[in-house]
Structure formats: C-alpha cells, structure tokens
C-alpha cells in the first residue's frame, strides 16, 4: 500500500503584529516594505509558546485527522531552528505529551527552514522500510529577527505536523533534495539572532536550490510543472515563491491558497509544511500537489504528492489552517518586544 500523509495538523499562535507597527518604530516605509516583501503582518508567539508547544498542538491535530493514538507513533522528528534547548531534545517532550513514549525513535532536526520536510523524508523512508508503522514529522519555529533588521518584518511563529504511514490521505509519490554548502544565512552557537548575506540569499541561495530541487523532481517523475494542481514553496516572504513559480511557468493561482505568509509571516521550518496543510484543507481526491522547502546553508526538499479519497473523511477532524490564520489578536511593538523577550537587562 502507498506511503504518504495519513494525518496533518497546523498551529499558528494568535498574536499578530502589523508591518506598519514595526515600521513606525524603525522609521520604515510600511507601504514599500509591504509591497517589497508581499507580507502584511506576522504571527507572534505568546510568552510561554515555543517550538515544543507549537509542535504539541500541531501533532495533536495530525493525530486527530489520522485517527490513531500517539502510542502508534514509532518515530518522531521535529525540524526547527529554534529548539528551546541547545542540548536536550524538543522531541522527547512532544513524544511524552502525545503519548508516544517509550517505544519511539526521537531526534531533533536542524536545517534552517527545511528540517521539517527532512523529517517527512526520514519518516517516509522508515515506513517504506517497514521499521515503523507510523512516523510523526514536524516543522515548527519561533524564528528570530534582530530588532531593526529586515528579518524582523517577517520572522514569525507556527508549525505543522504530519503523521506518515500507509493508507494515506495524500501519497508521497516522490521526493528528492538539492543540497550544497552555501552560507547565505546562519546563527552561531550562543547568538540570539541570525546573520544573513543580504542579496546573496536570493539567486544563489533560495532560487538555485528551490528550482534545483523542483527540476530534479520533475526529471525523476517525468512530470511537468504544469501537471500539478497546487504548489507550496518555502515562503521567506511572499515575493520569492511567486517569482519561483513564474520562473517554472506555474500559474499564480496554484500557489495563492497556500500563500498564508502574507498574513502570518515566515514561520521558517513551519513555512512550507503549513502551506501544504492549507492546500490539503481544500484539495480534492486525485489532485496533485508540488511542495518544495528551502533551508539556508543550503538545500531544497521537493515532494510530489497525490491527494486520495481518504481526504474527505479526515479533513474536518481538526481545525483548518485558515481558522488559525484568521484567529488573531493584534499587539503593539512594546508587547511584541516583551513577548519575544527582546528586552535585555
């Protein structure tokens, strides 16, 4: 039987901050920034929300859709670049919270914004190999942006979880990765905020790797970009994925339903997984979805998925992604600074 996504779940914190509110503090031109990034506002985690709590919420939603107990999860991997602990796994806390312990393989993944999709690849391989019945792959982040840096307008919080197994609601038909050593964005041990290579993050990083992975996948599957009904690309902002789609000759309309970045910002490891959940919320059986993540450092994971008949019966067993996107409460910059613990003594 085919291997793929058996259940999926999303979670986005409800606090939001508008681009205008950040621009006001840093004398930025809000209109120009909004147009330049194609982002209007971003999510802000509450003071006690982190990658672990976001992962738990998303994982519970994924289990609800899969209709299985946590104890059936044989492997759990969380991809994030904001694991709360440098040493001590996020995964053990989440595994305990969803009742997956003790017979479960756990490790935390990090590959900038694409460790969540790397977790999907590993879980899928373990299921195919017959080592586990179900795996839980999670991408979640409470990403960091230095006050005043361009990243502050987009770095947000959120995550998505996928139960990978047989009898899926969407089969993983093929996946591949395009990886090179490209230092476009990084955060060194002990540093609060990441550094980035400005314009270097575009063409030689995001576009080279994302398009590289997609083209590799198309070659592998003998498919054309036009064969897909929906597309989810990593969203460091709203502009990049739209440009990538245009370069591949993909209709903008196939991307828009998953382009929630405009309303919640860049959720880093959660970004392409969350976009995928938004598409699964509306896709019909038989439709094909192209997903590609991008992680700085750098690489892209491309997936070809086909939605199955199972989607209809499982879709409504957990809150939709848009219900999280639309549930919001605006905060001002001061509250944001407090919640994100940007004030230092």
């Amino acid at each position, binding site marked *: 039987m085919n291997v793929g996504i058996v259940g999926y779940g999303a979670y986005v914190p409800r606090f939001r901050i508008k681009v205008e509110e950040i621009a006001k503090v840093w004398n930025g*031109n809000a209109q120009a920034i909004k147009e330049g990034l194609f982002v209007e506002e971003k999510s802000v985690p509450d003071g006690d929300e982190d990658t672990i709590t976001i992962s738990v919420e998303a994982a519970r939603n994924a289990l609800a859709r899969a209709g299985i107990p946590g104890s059936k999860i044989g492997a759990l991997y969380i991809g994030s670049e904001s694991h709360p602990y440098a040493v001590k796994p996020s995964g053990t806390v989440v595994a305990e919270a969803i009742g997956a312990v003790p017979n479960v393989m756990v490790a935390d993944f990090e590959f900038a914004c694409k460790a969540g999709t790397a977790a999907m690849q590993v879980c899928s391989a373990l299921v195919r190999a017959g080592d586990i019945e179900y795996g839980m792959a999670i991408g979640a982040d409470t990403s960091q942006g230095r006050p005043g840096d361009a990243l502050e307008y987009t770095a947000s919080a959120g995550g998505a979880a996928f139960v990978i197994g047989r009898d899926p609601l969407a089969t993983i038909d093929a996946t591949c990765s395009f990886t090179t050593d490209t230092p476009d964005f990084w955060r060194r041990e002990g540093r609060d905020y990441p550094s980035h*290579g*400005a*314009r270097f993050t575009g*063409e*030689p990083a995001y576009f080279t790797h994302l398009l590289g992975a997609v083209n590799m996948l198309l070659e592998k599957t003998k498919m054309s970009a036009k064969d897909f009904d929906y597309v989810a690309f990593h969203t460091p902002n709203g502009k990049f994925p739209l440009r990538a789609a245009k370069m591949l000759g993909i209709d903008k309309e196939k991307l828009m339903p998953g382009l929630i970045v405009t309303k919640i910002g860049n959720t880093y490891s959660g970004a392409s997984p969350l976009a995928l959940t938004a598409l699964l919320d509306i896709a019909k059986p038989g439709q094909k979805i192209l997903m590609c993540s991008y992680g700085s450092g750098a690489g892209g994971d491309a997936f070809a998925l086909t939605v199955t008949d199972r989607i209809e019966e499982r879709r409504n067993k957990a809150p939709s992604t848009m219900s999280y996107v639309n549930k919001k409460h605006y905060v001002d910059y001061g509250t944001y600074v407090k919640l994100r613990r940007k004030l230092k003594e």
Partner: protein
Amino acid sequence: MRNVAVVGVGQTKFGEHWDKSIRDMIIEAGLAAVRDAKIERGDVQSLFIGCMSSGRYAGQEHLGALAADSLGMRVPATRFEGACASGSLAFRNAYVDVASGRHDCAIVIGAEKMTDVKGPEAITSLAAAGDQEWEAAIGLTFAGLYALMARKHMNDFGTTREQLAMVSVNNHKNGVANKNAQFRMPISVDDVLKSSIVADPLRLLDCSPITDGAAALVIMSENLAKKAANPVWILGSGQGSDTIALHDRASFTEMAATRTAAKEALSEAKININDLNMIEVHDCFSINEIIALEDLGFCEKGKGGRFVEDGNIDINGKIPVNTTGGLKAGGHPVGATGVRQAIDIVRQLRGDSCNQLKNPLYGMNLNVGGSGATAVVNIFGREMKQ
C-alpha cells in the same frame, strides 16, 4: 609620441557574479580582449590594471602580478588606483607607455569584485575614496557627498528633482539592448521619484549599483595597429586633480579636474568638444552626469538639468550620452568602469555597438574618481591623428 590604437576589447557581463572570483573575471575579460585583437598572449609586452579596492573586497592585493600570472603574460605588470577612475588611469598610462615607444603592445584591464562583502562593508570601502579624516570618519558616504552637490545645484540653478531622474531614465533606456548590462529594464521618472531615499535628494534609482565585473582592451603602436582588422585610434588623453575633500573646493557644483582633463585631451586630439559624436560620462549618481555635461562644455554651468530635459543626451539627441546604459544601468564595478567606458566608445567607432550610432567619428570618455579629486578624459577617433 607615436599614434596608438585599440585593437581588441573584451569584458565579463557586469552584475552579481556569486561564483566568480576577481581572478576568474580578469582571465575572462583579458582573454576575450586578446581573442578580439586576434593576437597571441605572447604578443603583449606590458600589462596595466586598474582596481580600487581588491584588498578590502576580495583580500587580494598585488593585482598586477596576479593578472600577469593568470593570463600567462610574464611582462611588466602594474596596478593603478585612483578610486572610481582607476580603470582610466591604467588605460592612460598604457597609452603613454606605447605612445612613448617603450612597448609596442599592451593590455589594459579594469576589475572589481564587490559582492563578496556585505552592503555596509562595500559602502565603507567606497568611502575610502574620499577624505578619511575629514569626510568618511564623520560618516559621509559617497551618496551623501553627491547629495550635497545635488542639493547645491538645485539651490543655485533651479535644477529639478525630475531632471535628475531623467538622467537615470536615459541610462536605463540605453541599457536595455546591452547584454553586458546589470539592469536591462526601462524605468520612468515616476519610478525614480518613488524609489527609496538614499541620501536626500538622491534616491535609489539615482545611484549606480554595486557590481562585479572586469573589462580589458589591447592597444598597439601605429606600425602594428595598421595591420589590425579594425583599429580605433586614441587621439588624446588628459588627467586632472582637485582637492580630495569636497568642502575644500571653491565650488560644490563644478569639477575642476574634469575641466583640466578635458582641456588637455581635446588639445592633444586637436578637436573641438562639439566635434564629438557621443560620450561616456561618469554617472555614479545622476547629478554627476549633469555636472559633467556642464564642465565638459556641452552647456553653460547651471543649465545641465535643462540640457537633459530637452532631450539632448538621447541616443538621437545633440550629444548621445552613455549609449549602452552608463554606470547606472550598466553597473559600476569601480576599477573596471573606465575601461568599460573606453570599450563602449571603441565599439561605437568600429561599428559593433549594441545601440549603434550612424558613422560616428569621435568619442570621449570621462571617468571621475571620488567626488571629483581625479578625472581622466580619453578621446578616440576612427581615423588616425595626422
């Protein structure tokens, strides 16, 4: 002094070359020029390279030796530095070298690799072209210096914000056909006026970009060049100096170095400014093109804005300026710019420009270093000077 001609040209595309080092670009441009000249590397007898800041941008100094080594030319090799005029300094000194009879064939290279450092670092490096103690140290960037000139020009002569924008619009229009240009899209006055502010009154689209690139050309003495397929003759060259700091000048709206250089070059070429069929000027910022048009004598001081607005610099105008996009659209790899300007004049005169004019006879390039402390003018002609 004997006659000297440009017999071969070559350049890299100007833009962001993430996967090329300064060495890669020197080799690419240098070999292209040698091929274009239809000579062998061994025919080159001396090498001149212009580069402003490879030490800060790429951690590489000793560029003469690097270029000679990389190109397989074991010849006397010297680097020239004069901020943004570095390329033309190399060119001018190569010309003097061959004209004097010391060597019969020389290669001139201009190169700059600017994107291996972040934007703020690039700006700090560029600020070293000004007065470190009196300008850079207090935070004056080059956009800031040229903004002061623009503000003064607007105040004294009524030059308008729109006229400044028209300079960029013309350069972008000319850059569209240039496959080596960094930006090949047309822009409108409105685009310039709505672009983000860099240093009031200059906006993003008033400013030339940070660019990687290299350009090279081969020059020969009269006896050798006569046998070349398509020689373009160097008729004159001039160089001027001024105070390095802007505030020490008598005027903020005039570049004395440009006037000195142009006078010397025109006198050597034995032509009049109005004999020129097209020019390449140093539009590092839009205001500089307006100041250049005035100082070169195409219009009175203060009338440059109006001169531009009236369409005189258009490709079909009285004096076509920057027919391939200039620094603004073409890109500004600092040390390569002067050599690139010379190449584009040579291409017009030998008839293979991307925006070819009808039978031009004379062309000139003006390459400015810093805020006008160094200026180099070279004049080229289709016919040899008698």
